[in-house]
């Protein structure tokens, strides 16, 4: 296993006004890893990033970079380069001067600087932009200058604060892949903060989902999406159907749940009989059939109440006869094939393996 580059150990941050922004955050980022810190605004992810950069100091806990304790070290003495959300390019300097800034602070000889600036500008495909003013560049170009400026110092870890947040949707989707490939090629360690679940899933090796100052789950994109551990993760990363109920039967492989709506669900996984639990299921795992299938355990009659057409797929809102509501996501069929309409009588089928037992983060 690769060594740890950044290590957070039970880090807390309480602001002077009493706001607890980060509560007991522990995290390890390994060399060459691309880790996304994902969460809604106000969840403490930006404060965590700023503590690693040294712009804020933890109220409790330790932060280590490359094994060295930097908890209260000043920002200029850490080796953690940051790309700001608004890029923070110096408007009174040219592109080349911006990129050279970090090396000039390190007293690197001018001839070496000139050469490295050229190398890094060509790395971000901005050859010949040396003498331009950053104010005159497009958002995407500014972002690449900011990236070159951070990379040129060869930091132990690169911190990205919503790096694509200021770009418009089409450009953002293009840049996701380009940025990921560039940083992987450089084998640089990256911590990046985002509130966009797609961005986190697409770009990172591992995702840490944060809510209310706590890390809820850390895992690879498919672990987080396919096996969410807490109700928050299931609801924030993608869309989920939730069922709440009491365990009425359990064997080593399956658990049977009686929901508040009165239906019985077979769920893979185990839980003690009598306990109240929450389970979740992805809309794309809910199949709709026109007739009941008696061989299927979780099959519930209902009616389509609304449809959201997304092009490649559609979301069907199903009101079950027991009163519960379900969302089902189905790929759009070819013209001529049967498409469900609002008011259609359907049977919603859920495989027990598509249902996950969730736990609250403290548990």
């Amino acid at each position, binding site marked *: 296993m690769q060594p740890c580059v950044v290590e957070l150990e039970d880090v807390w941050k309480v602001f002077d006004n009493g706001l607890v922004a980060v509560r007991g955050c522990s995290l390890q980022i390994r060399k060459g890893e691309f880790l996304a810190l994902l969460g809604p605004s106000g969840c403490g992810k930006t404060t965590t990033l700023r503590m690693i950069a040294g712009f804020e100091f933890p109220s409790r806990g330790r932060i280590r970079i490359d094994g060295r304790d930097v908890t209260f070290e000043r920002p*200029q003495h850490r080796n953690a380069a940051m790309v700001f959300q608004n890029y923070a390019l110096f408007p009174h300097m040219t592109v080349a001067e911006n990129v050279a800034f970090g090396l000039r*602070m390190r007293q690197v000889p001018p001839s070496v600087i000139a050469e490295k600036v050229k190398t890094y500008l060509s790395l971000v495909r901005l050859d010949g932009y040396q003498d331009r003013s950053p104010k005159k560049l497009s958002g995407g170009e500014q972002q690449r200058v900011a990236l070159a400026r951070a990379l040129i110092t060869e930091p132990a870890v690169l911190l990205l604060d919503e790096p694509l947040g200021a770009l418009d949707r089409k450009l953002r989707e293009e840049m996701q892949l380009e940025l990921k490939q560039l940083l992987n090629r450089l084998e640089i360690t990256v911590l990046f903060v985002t509130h966009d679940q797609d961005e986190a899933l697409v770009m990172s090796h591992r995702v840490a989902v944060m809510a209310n100052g706590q890390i809820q789950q850390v895992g690879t994109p498919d672990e987080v999406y396919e096996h969410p551990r807490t109700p928050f993760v299931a609801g924030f990363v993608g869309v989920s159907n939730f069922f709440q109920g009491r365990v009425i039967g359990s064997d080593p492989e399956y658990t049977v749940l009686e929901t508040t709506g009165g239906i019985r669900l077979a769920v893979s996984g185990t839980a003690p009989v009598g306990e109240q639990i929450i389970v979740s299921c992805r809309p794309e795992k809910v199949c709709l059939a026109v007739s009941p299938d008696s061989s299927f355990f979780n099959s519930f009659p209902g009616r389509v109440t609304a449809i959201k057409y997304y092009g490649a797929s559609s979301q069907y809102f199903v009101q079950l006869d027991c009163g519960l509501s379900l969302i089902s996501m189905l790929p759009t069929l070819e013209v001529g094939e049967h498409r469900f309409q609002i008011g259609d009588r359907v049977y919603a089928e859920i495989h027990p393996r598509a249902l996950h037992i969730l736990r609250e983060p403290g548990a």
Partner: protein
Amino acid sequence: MVHRQTDRLVREERLGTGARKRRPWLVIVYLVLAYLFLFLPSLVVILMSFNASRLSFFPLEGISLRWYQALFSDRLMWLGARNSLVVAVTTMVVATVLGLMFAYAMNRFRFPGKGFLTSLVMAPMLTPGVIIGISLLSFYYSLGIPRGLGTVLLAHVVLAIPYTTLVIASRMQGFDLSLEEAARNLGASEWTVLRKVTLPLLWPGILAAALFAFTISVDEFVVTFFVIGERAVTLPIKIYTGVRFGISPEVNAISSLVILFSTIVLGLALSRQARA
């Protein structure tokens, strides 16, 4: 951008609702008349300064530069100009440095009573000149400080500080703090950040503030009049002394020059700020 622009266009069109595309000529005529009313006095002064006759009456009796000639040969006028310049330059430097420090403290730090103190620093801007004059006079008098250019300088600094503070503070308000964070993130010390990032970015505001302070000092009359004492003289005081014995064409000449000079300096300051 386009949206804002179209908004304006719509509003223009709306003015003459029946007649689209017509420019609001009435408004222009009204504005031109209003401006004439405001500036006619200055124009009259400039015109009169070229009057060949001593009497300030229309019609002019011929064009002449004799009053400018008379002006330039007046020793006391030159002394006043020199004093004004010395006081103004010193005021400019001191008030700008202090204004920068005030603005920085107000923008960057939080401390109890900050709002109260901020409104206090602005008070000299709002206190009537007569009151400031009397206050300072009474102050110097009761402490036994002799009046002269030194007391004038002190008064001008007090008067200029609110303006320099305001101008620099308004520039600081738009300052993106993440630029300083970025510099530190890239390895710059606090001092280097100030030198390489903060001050260069505040520069247009600092320059505008300096020009404001200079103009305020050069033009100041009321307070100066109270605190200058009997021996010293500045340009506005000299002009006033000239007027005491009736409007002379010499006074018109010096006034024209001051109007010209003030307009240039203030034009510079405003364009600096606009570009900032």
